[in-house]
């Protein structure tokens, strides 16, 4: 067994024992803020789960996403994503780490000067997928999100819902193990929001672990999925088919 294979086996074993996402007593203090953004959080998310992370503004949801993306490191405790301790990742290893982690944001974060196809293809270009394969993968994923006919369209000319679908297609085209969605319906009308949630559920059914950060009780309560509620940086409840009452 090569060293690479040994490391993969160790990671797989870790995921088996601790989940695909594992936060071990994690706290995060921003120096400029008094109270910790995340406080003594321990959380395990297993492979293939669909989890809502809910909470009011300032509850620590966004910090949690930043910790998972290895945008920041915890002040104390460890964050394990796909068996990798984010603290032990070197700067040069972060890009490869993020390629297995699809991410969707509330404000879509698309490359505005490129068309739909190029936005999705970009995720494939960075991992140097051969052009022929790219020409197969991109239309296929665009078709899955319902944008097959709009691959040439400039993303600025798309509606909010369509832009979020492009972001979703980009996040999924490299077949990530985990999909992080930070308020994916925050800028969408109810119809588009449901469409996006249906897509996320479909992706989850295909085996991808989906973590959705939201503060929309309507969506959370009707999806009947695991709900992790946060308040002032702490996890206050963690229930299968949980409910969420927005206090904002």
């Amino acid at each position, binding site marked *: 067994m090569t060293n690479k294979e040994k490391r993969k086996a160790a990671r797989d074993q870790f995921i088996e024992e601790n989940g695909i996402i594992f936060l071990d007593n994690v706290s995060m203090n921003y120096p400029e803020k008094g109270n910790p953004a995340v406080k003594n959080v321990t959380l395990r998310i297993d492979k293939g789960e669909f989890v809502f992370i809910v909470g009011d503004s300032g509850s620590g949801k966004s910090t949690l996403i930043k910790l998972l993306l290895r*945008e920041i490191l915890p002040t104390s405790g460890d964050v394990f994503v796909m068996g990798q301790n984010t603290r032990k990742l070197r700067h*040069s290893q972060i*890009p*490869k780490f*993020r*390629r297995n982690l699809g991410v969707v944001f509330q404000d879509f*974060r698309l490359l505005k000067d490129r068309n739909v196809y190029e936005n999705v293809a*970009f995720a494939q270009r*960075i991992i*140097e997928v051969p052009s022929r394969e790219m020409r197969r993968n991109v239309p296929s994923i665009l078709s899955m999100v319902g944008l097959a006919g709009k691959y040439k369209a400039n993303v600025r000319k798309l509606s909010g819902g369509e832009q979020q679908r492009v972001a979703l297609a980009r996040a999924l085209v490299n077949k990530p193990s985990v999909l992080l969605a930070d308020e994916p319906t925050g800028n969408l009308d109810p119809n588009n929001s449901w469409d996006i949630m249906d897509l996320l559920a479909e992706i989850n059914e295909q085996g991808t672990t989906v973590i959705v950060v939201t503060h929309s009780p309507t969506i959370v309560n009707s999806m009947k999925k695991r709900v992790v509620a946060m308040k002032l940086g702490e996890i206050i409840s963690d229930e299968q088919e949980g409910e969420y009452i927005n206090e904002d």
Partner: protein
Amino acid sequence: MKIRTFLYTLWQGIRNMFKNGWYTLASVATIGACLFLLGMFYSIVSNAQHILYTVEEGVSVTVFFNEDVTDAQIDAFGQELLQRPEVRDVVFHSDEEIWATFGPSYFGPDYQEGFPENPLKGEHNYEVFLRAVSLQDQLVGWLQTKPEVRLVRYSEVTASTLSGFNLMLVYVSGAIILILLAVSIFLISNTVRVGISVRSEEIGIMKYIGATDFFVRAPFVLEGIMIGLIGAVIPLALIYYLYDYVLNMLTTRFEMLSSMLSFLTVAEIFNVLVPLSVGMAVGMGFLGSFITVRKYLKV
């Protein structure tokens, strides 16, 4: 990096240039204006130094010998002079040659009448040309210690004036070139910085998707290099035609001036100006974009 990735990066760099047309134009204009000023100043200073050098080349020290010094000793002394670090060239003038040159100009074609012997006998000398006029004092000091030497003729005023002027030119031009360089570097890097900072969001998105620093940076760096290159070529072309035009005008309209002064050719100026300008512009484009992008890569 695979070839298709390199080509993609190159294409993105070119595309960015056109996409951010105003930024490209502003950067090219800034680089062009700075390098044009630098190039013009360099051309003027180089010519001033060249003229000064030509004048200096004509300045010489004349060495006369004692009567008892033999021809063999004079030859040996000539060889010794040529070994001196201050000496560029040595020309021997025999007393016959001097009389044959000056006799006719003072006494007419029959200058030998009334002079049964050469009146300048024993006046043979070495005309010593210096490597730099500032070395004159050093050489004269050495010559005056030699027992063979009877007299050393030189102009202290000419040497000190030329030397002082040369030194002043070096300091002043050096200072101005340094200031122009500093201003150019500041303006160019600032333009590059502003241009990239408006695209910081784009860099952030690429990083979130998992692009490596190299993949994100390469199009920006290539764009910076291309902008630098265009920004250097335009002022160089302008200076080329302008310099040629001014040189032609000076030599045709002011013939007297051109017979007194010698100017550097365009080729001589461009031997230094092309690598300097291109190196500076491309270097600034590269470093400016490389350093600025780095700031936004920490996502």
